[in-house]
């Protein structure tokens, strides 16, 4: 200890000498470009990081080896030398048939996992023929209203060989049920299939705002899926706790980190209270982060996330199994950072953001297409996005060694700063009684909104730069890229299939199974078995969600 202190004061003396002599001389010749250097999160970055900035960081305690607690350097001992990250491009538009064709195209081009984007009616639990769905069917994702659509979506895609991630939240339990019934019809064993359900309802109230039921009932549905998957679909990840949308809504990197991890803790708390076994359900909780513009801030965020999760699981929940402590996460590049102006510049942004995700040790990655600020991606744009990952993986050499940035004064200092900032947020949220209570009070929502506004103001003052927008803008810019247009006939196509489905099914069986869903919800039983039964009878998404609405009611957002 004494030696450490001496070494650290030696370092301080050396630093002081550098500042007095070399730095002063340099500043005398060339002053700095600006008085404040900030990240895209408006966090201040110091001129230099050196041993004095990591004096309190211990290699054994805080950094350690890859594959070892606290997993700062990654959960795999060999980094990406064993297996590259999964290249999982989020896709979905128009009819299930159109999206099925896109899936097959991406798989043929070397993509290694699928990720489904559903349209807004699906996200809100409405069928394509609901009046509320007008103008929205197949627009922001693929239109799915019943098992018949889901069968078309996965036609020719063996679910026991391809892992599928589904971005669906408020009605997630219904989509899990549809997925399982499709697997059943393909004769795929539930014990063997894998995949991920986003199913993170807390971030919906915080940021993405696609909710249906009041928050506590919605949490109950999430826990139902945990319990069901633990017992029947053990290799499936029933949740992807998502910071992505919190960030897109305006959060800083630190807020994304803090709220996402605190959400994760909340799910573990609720699972434990429902009597689930920590060692069995927590290893299947996965995470999902944003990859934004500020390269090192992002990398520090991922490293801090792993460290915090490992420590909280061990120290707060008493985990002993390392799989409980190892955080696995997906990353997507920041849609919000893409510009309509000079859209080909987005290819460069995406490449750099993706590189941050890889250097941060992500398990899977989606790279945005350059045309996403304009519309859903065309085939060509989606292909370049996939190729970007393949270039990072196979040309740059960054996957040759585990955690190449470990030990960097800057990265380690930033990682520790992020961890401390997140723990401060945890304290504030704990003082409110937990994350559900904090969300009910509007706390994370307000924090995110404030950050979004601060960023906008910084941008308009010229303190933050977006190339092609508030700097290097071009007056007579041509619209240079073709965009994907969704045919308004998608709705007709979907409504026709719904009508056919309703005509062909056994409507008394539908009524009976919907009633069972209602009863399970009323009694507080696990709703998954009844939901699966209803799906098997081709009860529609809208019908099942409506049965649950009868029991739970709907969420009304408080004014914030």
């Amino acid at each position, binding site marked *: 200890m004494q030696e450490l202190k001496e070494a650290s004061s030696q370092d301080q003396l050396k630093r002081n000498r550098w500042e007095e002599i070399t730095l002063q001389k340099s500043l005398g010749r060339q002053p700095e470009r600006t008085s404040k250097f900030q990240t895209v999160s408006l966090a201040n970055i110091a001129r230099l990081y050196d041993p004095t900035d990591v004096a309190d960081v211990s290699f054994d305690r805080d950094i350690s080896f890859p594959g070892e607690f606290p997993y700062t350097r990654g959960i795999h001992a060999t980094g990406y030398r064993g297996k590259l990250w999964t290249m999982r491009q989020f896709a979905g538009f128009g009819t299930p048939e159109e999206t099925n064709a896109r899936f097959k195209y991406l798989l043929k081009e070397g993509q290694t996992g699928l990720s489904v984007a559903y349209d*807004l*009616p699906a*996200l*809100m639990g*409405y069928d394509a023929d609901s009046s*509320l*769905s*007008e*103008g*929205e069917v197949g*627009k*922001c994702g693929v239109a799915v209203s019943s098992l018949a659509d889901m069968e078309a979506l996965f036609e020719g895609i063996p679910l026991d060989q391809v892992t599928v991630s589904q971005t669906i939240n408020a009605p997630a339990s219904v989509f899990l049920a549809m997925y399982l019934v499709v697997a059943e019809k393909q004769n795929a064993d539930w014990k063997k299939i894998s995949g991920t359900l986003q199913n993170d309802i807390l971030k*919906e109230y915080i940021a*993405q*705002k*696609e*909710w249906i039921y009041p928050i506590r009932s919605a949490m109950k549905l999430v826990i139902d899926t945990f319990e069901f998957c633990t017992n029947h679909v053990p290799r499936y990840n029933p949740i992807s706790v998502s910071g992505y949308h919190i960030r*897109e*809504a*305006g959060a800083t990197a630190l807020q994304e980190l803090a709220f996402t991890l605190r959400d994760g803790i909340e799910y573990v708390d609720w699972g434990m209270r429902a009597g689930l076994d920590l060692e069995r359900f927590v290893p299947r909780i996965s995470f999902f982060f944003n990859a934004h513009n500020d390269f090192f801030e992002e990398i520090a965020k991922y490293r801090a996330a792993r460290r915090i999760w490992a420590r909280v699981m061990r120290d707060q929940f008493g985990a002993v199994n390392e799989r409980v402590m190892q955080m696995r996460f997906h990353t997507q590049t920041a849609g*919000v950072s893409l*510009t*309509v*102006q000079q859209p080909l510049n987005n290819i460069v942004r995406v490449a750099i953001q993706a590189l941050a995700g890889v250097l941060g040790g992500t398990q899977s990655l989606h790279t945005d297409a350059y045309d996403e*600020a*304009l*519309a859903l991606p065309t085939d060509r744009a989606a292909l370049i996005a996939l190729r970007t990952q393949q270039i990072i993986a196979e040309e740059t050499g960054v996957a040759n060694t585990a955690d190449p940035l470990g030990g960097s004064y800057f990265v380690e200092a930033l990682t520790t700063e992020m961890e401390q900032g997140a723990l401060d947020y945890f304290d504030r949220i704990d003082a409110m009684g937990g994350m559900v209570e904090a969300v009910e009070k509007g706390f994370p929502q307000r924090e995110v*909104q404030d950050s*979004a*506004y601060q960023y*906008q103001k910084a*941008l*308009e003052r010229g303190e933050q730069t*977006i190339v092609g*927008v*508030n700097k290097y803008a071009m007056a007579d810019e041509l*619209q240079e890229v073709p*965009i994907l*247009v*969704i045919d308004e006939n998608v709705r007709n196509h979907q409504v026709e299939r719904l009508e056919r489905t309703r005509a062909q099914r056994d409507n008394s069986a539908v009524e009976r199974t919907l009633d069972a869903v209602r009863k399970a919800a009323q009694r507080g039983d696990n709703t998954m078995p009844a939901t699966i039964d209803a799906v098997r009878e081709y009860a529609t998404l809208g019908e099942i969600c409506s049965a649950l609405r009868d029991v739970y009611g709907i969420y009304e*957002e408080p*004014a914030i």
Partner: protein
Amino acid sequence: MDNSTRKIRVLVAKPGLDGHDRGAKVIARALRDAGMEVIYTGLRQTPEMIAAAALQEDVDAVGVSILSGAHNTLCPRIVSLLREQGMTDTLVVLGGIVPQEDIAKLKEQGVAEIFLPGTSTQEIATFIRENVKPRE
């Protein structure tokens, strides 16, 4: 009330099923900071609800935020409902992700201006200030 003292009243509206309200909320706050009275409808308002709110709040302008691609369905309906209830001078502006091809048609249908991603909040405030009809 004299136009020079009456604050410009703006309804910021978010129709459709989409929950991406970052833009709507930033704009609402920026217009407030620019000295306007702003009423935000909250999420998932139907065109009927938006028109009713505009009438009830007696606004000078309606700012619609749509990122989902549903603008061709929702915007013309909002404009015609406003006109039907006699709000012939009420300025309607749209912000969001709107393809170039749709812009001319939306303008023909009565949307005064379409603000695409990257527009500064000051530019929007200035447009509203310069284009709302003076009150008696």
